[in-house]
């Protein structure tokens, strides 16, 4: 008997093997490689959908399913990729994340303006909270978002992948081109420390 890491860690089914760095997949997708594009979709879409579901208030979901919203956004980003300038590591995730958040905001505004049960439009001052806001509080979420915005793309990417999308260290190493899971782990902890500092400054 021995104790040690399992002989081989198979990649989880959600992420096809081998894991190519996102930047490499993006480069291939940009060159018209359909497989690379599919890999990007398969890699991010399910997790982005679940992440977005926590951000979209129940009331705002009736007309456009969260899944559709995220899929449309990701397809639009990938199709318009030639026209998008993504700079540096983490730029793609940051761009997709922000685009989905913008779509959600639009959706919330739209749903708040549509007529309520009594025919009178509901005001945009009273949007129902998202599940995440319900769980942690709107003020905390706002400070979290502002703190994230002050980090660099690389830090934001790591936190998005780990904290929000729940990729494991091995996957993140493969996706970001970092040398090892330990390197990822250390980088994520540093990014968390930075974010906590930013959030703490606002308290």
């Amino acid at each position, binding site marked *: *008997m*021995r*104790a*040690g*890491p*399992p*002989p081989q860690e*198979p990649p989880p089914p959600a992420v096809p093997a081998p894991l190519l760095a996102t930047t490499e997949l993006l480069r291939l997708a940009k060159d018209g490689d359909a497989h690379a594009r599919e890999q990007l979709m398969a890699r991010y879409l399910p*997790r982005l*959908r*679940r*992440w*977005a*579901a*926590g951000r979209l208030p*129940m*009331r705002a*979901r*009736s007309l456009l*399913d*969260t*899944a559709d919203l995220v899929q449309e956004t990701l397809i639009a980003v990938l199709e318009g990729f030639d026209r998008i300038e993504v700079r540096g590591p983490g730029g793609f995730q940051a761009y997709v994340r922000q685009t989905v958040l913008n779509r959600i905001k639009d959706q919330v505004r739209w749903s708040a303006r549509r007529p309520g*049960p009594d025919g009178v439009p509901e005001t945009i001052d009273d949007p*129902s909270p998202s*599940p*995440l806001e*319900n*769980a*942690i509080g709107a003020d*905390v*979420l706002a*400070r*979290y978002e502002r703190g994230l915005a002050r980090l660099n793309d690389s830090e934001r990417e790591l936190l998005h992948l*780990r*904290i*929000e*999308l*729940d990729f494991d*260290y091995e996957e993140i190493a493969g996706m970001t081109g970092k040398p090892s*899971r*330990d390197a990822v*782990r250390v980088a*994520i*902890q540093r990014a*968390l*420390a930075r*974010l*906590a*500092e930013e*959030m*703490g400054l606002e*308290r």
Partner: protein
Amino acid sequence: MSDNHDRVEELLKSISDGNPVDWDSITRDASTGDRVRIAALSELSRIAAFSRSLQRGGEPFASPAAGSAAQPERWGDLLLLEPLGSGASADVYRAWEIRLQREVALKLLRPDAAGNAGRDADAALLQEGRAAARIRHPSVVTVHGIDSHDGRVELWMDLVRGVTLEQIVHDRGPLTADTAIRIGIDVGSAIAAVHGAGLLHRDVKPANIVRDERGRYVLTDFGLGCRTAATSLASAQSGTPMYMAPELFAGAAASERSDIYALGLTLWFALAGRHPFEADSLAKLMAQSGQGPARLREVRSEIPEEIAALVDRAVARRPEDRPASAARFVETLESCATGARAAAPGSPGSRGATRRSARGAALAALLAIAIATAAIVTLRNGRDDSAANRARVANAPATAAPAPAAPAYDVEAAFLKRDDDAAARLLNGDRVSPGDRLSLEVRATRAAWVYVLNEDDRGEHYILFPQPRFDTKNPIPADRTLLLPGTIDGLENAWTVTSAGGREHFLIVVSPEPLPEIEADLGRLPAAEPGRPIEYAQVGASTVEVLRGVGGVSPLPAGAAQPAARSRAFDRFRALAGRETGVSGVWTRQIVFENPRP
């Protein structure tokens, strides 16, 4: 300053790894200057926990296009995440318990589920739910709370992830006798725990049994809503009457034996791959139920006779012909399992002791290679110390054992064989082979020191757990199921079988206090250091003797062969029985896996 830095590093690691943190005590102990940062870290931890719950919850929330107006978003302290299903008497949601930051299943009973009997019925349900919340059993879904809001009774409990037995049989067809035995033992002991709490489950059926991510079969959907469904014919028509005992159709009250009947019929279904009755109306079902199902071996003749007979008895038409209790049912099933193994060709029980000892020398060589690192380290780090320690232990007075007056507690332990995406519980005598990854699932109802010892074929003993490099340390916290060895630097580990031939012998020790004999052996191991190979401490046979003294040795069955001079030191410990309640002092159990040559 350094302490603060280390503590913050530890918190960052916990947030990133998803490990629980007691934020209340961290905040309480923090200096004023640290509190702002701790508060921000706590908020990040909440965001991370909620995000993980979303990611691990399966598909995104269902679109509430239909019926969204009626769907609440919040229920008391619970945030409703998605509907999981609706039955005749209740709606079930995946929910987030905001205060405790955990995911739960919320069952909202329909206003009329209590039988239109108003407050009295509600009060009875609440009382029953509170009793259910006191049940702690690894195969019973844990009920966290019950309350009543706006005329609806709500019950929230562990969200068990996995696949139902109904789905397993649907996908794979009839199950093997071994699998059915596992199901029977897991679910039967769960029902025994429910009955022990003075309750009935009332809705045992394949759809309410889930094989969880660790391979355990868990009894879910704790009654309440099914209370009326099982006690009146009218409500049975709207519920699921397929597993109802025949006397219930005749108006008798539900009983322990009607739960046993449902378990028997569930096992019949699992072994036959289909339900015994094919009825398209309640009248036909009642008629067929009155006649009873076919004998199991008429459907599958290869099922071992003892097991088939037990299942047939559990589904007897007359309640008095069924096993008297779920506990008795489980005991009989366990003896069936042991008998089946002993009778199997080539099984260990059928081999002669001579053959076993003749093979010993060759196996010793193989196993020595498998744990060579440990042996070398033990020699290098003080064989002499070890000898001295053994002498000390041998002379230690009996009072070295933890005080027997320690409050009684419950222990649950089982080895799991782990695949990439699942785990199966191992029973004593099961087979393992090279490459298999093993973990010990352990839980105690009090904080406890856990030790896992391995005995090789030369009779030498090594401490597999704890280990300086493992993240999980003693004592393990109360009421938390842990998988050992746990993680090393955040990466989950398992004990890996590295060679074939012989048997793997383990001794599991759970103690309310650290055991000085073992701690002394552990103390000689080098300190944890990243990159250092895993090294095991060796313990002497005298330490095992002391364990036998403090843990108690159960008498061998009458007529059992006396241990030979070369018998294994672990052989006089009781075989692992999974779960034990009311333990006082040290709990020791051994488990042996067959590891034959290919």
